[in-house]
C-alpha cells in the first residue's frame, strides 16, 4: 500500500477516534460533562493523537531505515567477482537500483508481468532492450549477477512495503483501541494530550538539529568517498582544475577558492563603503521622511531573487563592461562574463545587507554619547568618525563578515556572471569560476554520482560549509566579545 493511502487511513482513523472517544467519555459521565476530569474534546483528542502520531512516526522512520537495510543486505550479497576492475561496489549498487527501478516501471506500464520480472534471466532475455521499450535507458548490458541482485532488491522492497503497511496500520489500530478502551470519566485526558503535544513541539524544534546533522552527514559521507578514490593532497595542493569525465582529471581547489575570494573581495569593496555611508546618512543625517522613503527602497535590493541579479550580470552589466574594457575599448576583457561583472553585481546585492545591519548597530549607540560629543564642540561628522563608529565597530565588523559569508556562498550570480574557466589570474576582467559555480556544474547533467568528478562537488560543498560557518561564528564572537554594554 502506498504511503499516501497509509496516511489517509491513519487520518481517517484519527477523525473517527476523535468522535468516538469524545462520545464514550460523555456516555460514561451520563451525558454530563461536569462529571468528567477534562473537557470532552480532550478525550477525543487523546484517541485521535494516540492512533495517528505513532503510526506516522513509524512511517517516517521506515522511509529512512528501509533503504539502509535493503542496501546493506543486497550489497552484502554481491560477490567481489561481480565488481568489475576499476569500479566500486557503490557503482554496481546504483546499476542494480536502476535495473530494479526499470523493472518496476515495466511492470507498472504492463510491459512485463510481475512474475516475468522476477523470473527473467539474462541468458534468455535481453534485459536492456526490454527496459528500453518502456523508456528506461541503461548504460551497459545487464549482467546475470546484476539482474539477480536487482530481483532480490525488488523482492526485498516488496516485503518491506508489506511489513510497513502491517506495522503502520497495526500501530494506528492498536493506538486507537488502547486509547478508546482506556477512556472513562476519571481519565486525565487533558494531561495526556498536553504531554503528547509537548512531545510534538520538541520534535518540531529538533528538526533544526536533524537538518544540521543531515547536512553534515551527507557532506562527510560523500567527501570521504571522494577522498577514497582521489588523493586528498592533490585536492588541497594542486593548482589546476580540469575535470574530465573520461578520467585523468585534476581537481585542485585553489583556482576555485581564488575565484571565490576575488569575486567576494570586489563585491565587498562595492558594498561596504556604499552600505556603510548609506547607513550613517540614514541614521544620523536623514530627516524622518527621507529615511521612510530611502530605507525600504534600499531593502528592495535585498528582496530581489539572486537569479534576477544573475541575469542582470549576464545580459546587462557584462556587455556594458565589455564595451568599455573589451576589444573596442581598453582591451583587457575577453568576454562579458568576468570576475568584475559578478563582483559588481554581487556588491549591489549586498548593499542593503551591510546598510541595514550597520543601521541597527549605529542606532543602538546611546544618544548621550552623541550629546556629549556635541557639547564639547564637535561637528556631526567628527562625532560620527570619532565617537559613534568606534563604538559601533564590533557590530560593523560582524556585519561585514556576515556579508562576506553571503558573498562566498552566493551561487546564481557567479554561475551566470563569472564565467566557467578555472584559472589563477590577477586580472579582474578575466573569467574565473567559484566553488559554488563548480558545485552546480559538477552535479547537474547526467553525471555518475560515484565518479570523482561528481563526488568532488561534495568536498567543495564541505569546504564552503566550513568557511561560511567559520565566518558566521567569528562574526557572532566578535559582536559578543567586543560589544560595549550601555545602560
Amino acid at each position, binding site marked *: 500500500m502506498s504511503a499516501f493511502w497509509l496516511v489517509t487511513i491513519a487520518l481517517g482513523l484519527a477523525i473517527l477516534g476523535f468522535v468516538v472517544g469524545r462520545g464514550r467519555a460523555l456516555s460514561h459521565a451520563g451525558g454530563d460533562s461536569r462529571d468528567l476530569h477534562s473537557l470532552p474534546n480532550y478525550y477525543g483528542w487523546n484517541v485521535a493523537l494516540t492512533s495517528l502520531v505513532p503510526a506516522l512516526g513509524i512511517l517516517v522512520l521506515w522511509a529512512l531505515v528501509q533503504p539502509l537495510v535493503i542496501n546493506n543486505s543486497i550489497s552484502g550479497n554481491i560477490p567481489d567477482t561481480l565488481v568489475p576492475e576499476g569500479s566500486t561496489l557503490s557503482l554496481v549498487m546504483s546499476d542494480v537500483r536502476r535495473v530494479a527501478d526499470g523493472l518496476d516501471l515495466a511492470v507498472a506500464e504492463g510491459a512485463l508481468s510481475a512474475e516475468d520480472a522476477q523470473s527473467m534471466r539474462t541468458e534468455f532475455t535481453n534485459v536492456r532492450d526490454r527496459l528500453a521499450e518502456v523508456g528506461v535507458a541503461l548504460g551497459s548490458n545487464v549482467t546475470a549477477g546484476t539482474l539477480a541482485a536487482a530481483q532480490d532488491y525488488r523482492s526485498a522492497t516488496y516485503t518491506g512495503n508489506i511489513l510497513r503497511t502491517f506495522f503502520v496500520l497495526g500501530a494506528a489500530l492498536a493506538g486507537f483501541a488502547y486509547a478508546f478502551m482506556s477512556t472513562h470519566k476519571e481519565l486525565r485526558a487533558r494531561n495526556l494530550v498536553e504531554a503528547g503535544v509537548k512531545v510534538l513541539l520538541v520534535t518540531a*524544534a529538533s528538526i533544526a538539529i536533524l537538518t544540521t546533522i543531515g547536512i553534515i552527514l*551527507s557532506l562527510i559521507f560523500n567527501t570521504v568517498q571522494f577522498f577514497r578514490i582521489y588523493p586528498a593532497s592533490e585536492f588541497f595542493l594542486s593548482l589546476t582544475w580540469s575535470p574530465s569525465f573520461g578520467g585523468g582529471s585534476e581537481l585542485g581547489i585553489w583556482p576555485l577558492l581564488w575565484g571565490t575570494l576575488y569575486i567576494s573581495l570586489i563585491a565587498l569593496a562595492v558594498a561596504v563603503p556604499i552600505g556603510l555611508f548609506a547607513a550613517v546618512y540614514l541614521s544620523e543625517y536623514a530627516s524622518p521622511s527621507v529615511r521612510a522613503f530611502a530605507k525600504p527602497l534600499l531593502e528592495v535590493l535585498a528582496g530581489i531573487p539572486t*537569479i534576477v541579479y544573475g541575469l542582470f550580470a549576464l545580459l*546587462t552589466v557584462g556587455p556594458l563592461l565589455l564595451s568599455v574594457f573589451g576589444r573596442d575599448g581598453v582591451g583587457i576583457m575577453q568576454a562579458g562574463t568576468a570576475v568584475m561583472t559578478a563582483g559588481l553585481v554581487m556588491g549591489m546585492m549586498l548593499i542593503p545587507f551591510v546598510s541595514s545591519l550597520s543601521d541597527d548597530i549605529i542606532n543602538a549607540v546611546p544618544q548621550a554619547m552623541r550629546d556629549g560629543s556635541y557639547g564639547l564642540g564637535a561637528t556631526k561628522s567628527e562625532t560620527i568618525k570619532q565617537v559613534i563608529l568606534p563604538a559601533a565597530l564590533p557590530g560593523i565588523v560582524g556585519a561585514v563578515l556576515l556579508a562576506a559569508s553571503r558573498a562566498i556562498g*552566493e551561487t546564481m550570480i557567479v554561475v551566470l556572471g563569472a564565467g566557467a574557466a578555472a584559472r589563477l589570474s590577477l586580472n579582474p576582467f578575466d573569467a574565473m569560476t567559484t566553488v559554488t559555480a563548480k558545485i552546480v556544474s559538477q552535479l547537474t547533467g547526467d553525471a555518475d554520482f560515484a565518479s570523482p568528478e561528481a563526488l568532488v562537488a561534495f568536498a567543495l560543498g564541505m569546504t564552503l560549509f566550513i568557511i561560511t560557518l567559520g565566518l558566521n561564528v567569528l562574526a557572532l564572537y566578535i559582536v559578543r566579545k567586543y560589544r560595549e554594554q550601555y545602560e
Partner: protein
Amino acid sequence: MTDATLDTGGERRASHGSLTAQDERTKRRNRAEARFKAYGIAAISAGLFFLCVLLVSIITNGLTAFQQTFIEVEVFLDPEVLDKNGNRDPDDLRKVSTFGYNPLINQAVFDKINSFDLDSPIEDPKQMRNLVSASAAATLRDSVLEDPELIGQTLTYQLLASSRVDGYLKGRVSRESIAEDKNITVEDLDLVDQMVEAGIIAKSFNWSFITGADASESRPEQAGIGVSMLGSLFMMFVVLALSLPIGVAASIYLEEFAPQNRFTDFIEVNISNLAAVPSIVFGILGLAVFIQFMHLPQSAPLVGGLVLTLMTLPTIIISTRASLKAVPPSIRDAALGVGASKMQSVFHHVLPLAMPGILTGTIIGLAQALGETAPLLLIGMVGYIATNYPEGVASGFMDPNSAIPAQIYQWATRADPAFYERAWGGIIILLVFLMTMNIIAILLRRRFERRW
C-alpha cells in the same frame, strides 16, 4: 582636539578678528562636514541608482516577451495531402506528420503575399518556412485531429511567426546581424516589412507565454512559463504545508516551554547557523538525502518543496518567535489566573494574538523560497523541458517539472538570444508574484498589528 588647541592656541586667538567671520580652521571643519554628508548622499543615491537601473533593464528587456508576432493566413486543408484515403479515419489522419502540413502553410503564406501583390524576389513557396514558426504545423495538425471535418475547407489561422521575424519586429534582429544566419535572409526581411504594411504580420498580446509550456531549443517563439509556474505552485504548497506547522510548533516550544538548558541552547545555535548556511548547501542535502538515499523522484516538486522547507524554516522560526515575544506576559498571566493550563494559555490566547505576525513572516519566507534557484539546480529541476501539464494533483507533486526561477535560468543559458527576452519576461512574472506576496504581508501587518 585638546592637543590642537594647546599647540596653536596663541596664534589662533590672535587671528580671531571677529566672531561673525569664520577662521581657517572652522572653515576646514565645516568643509569636512559638508564632504562627509555628501558621501552619505552619494552612497544612498548610488544604491537607489542601482535599483533603478536594475528595474529599468528588467522592464525594457522583458516587456517585449508579452508581445508576439503572428501571421494571419487562410490555409486550405488539402484532402489530397492530409487524408489520401478520403475516409476521415482518425488513425489515418494521425499518420500524417507535421511535415505533411508544412507545404500547406508555406503555400498559404505565399498565396497571401501574392494576393496582396507585394513586390518580392522570392519565387519558391518553400522559402516561406523562414517566416513561419516550426510550431505552426503542429497547431494545424492538432486542430485537424480534433475535428477531421475541417479537411477540405479554407480556414483563417493566426500562426506564430518564426523567432527571427519576431525579433526583427521587436528590433532584436537587424539586417546586419543576420549575415551569418541560415534561418533567414535579407530578402525575407524586406518581405516582412511589406507584410507588416499590408497587415498580414502583426504583434499581439502573448497569452501563450503566460500559460504555455517550454519549447525546444530551436523554437523560442513558442516557449512559455505556464507549466513551470504550476511547478512553483506545487512546491509552494509543500513549503506552506510543512514549514508553517513545524515552524510554529518549534517556535512555541522554544519561546514558551523550553527550559534554560544545553539542549535548548543547542537548538538555538543550530537555527541561527542554518539561517546563514548558503542555499546551495541545502541543495546538496536534498540531493544526498532525498534523491540518493530515499530515492524520491528527481525533478519532482515534492523534493523541491522539501528542500525549500528546510531552507525557509529558520526564517519562519525567527519571525514567529519575534511575534510570540511581542505578546505581553499579562495575557499569559491572565489566562493562567483564571485556571487555564500553560498549554491552554498558549494555544487559546497567545497564539491567536501572534497569528498576524506569524502569517506575515510566513508569507515573506514563502516569497524567499519562491525566488530561490540554486538548490533546485542540484535536485534536477533544470535540464528538463517542462512541456507537459501535470495530469492531476498527485502527478503535480511527483512528476518532473520545473520552477519559475529554474526555467529563467535555463532560458538564460540557452544559445539563442531570443530566449533572453523570455528570461526577462519570466523575471517580470516572478517579481509580480513576489511583490504581491510582500504587499499582502505589509497589509496584514498594517491591518492587524497591535501595539501593547
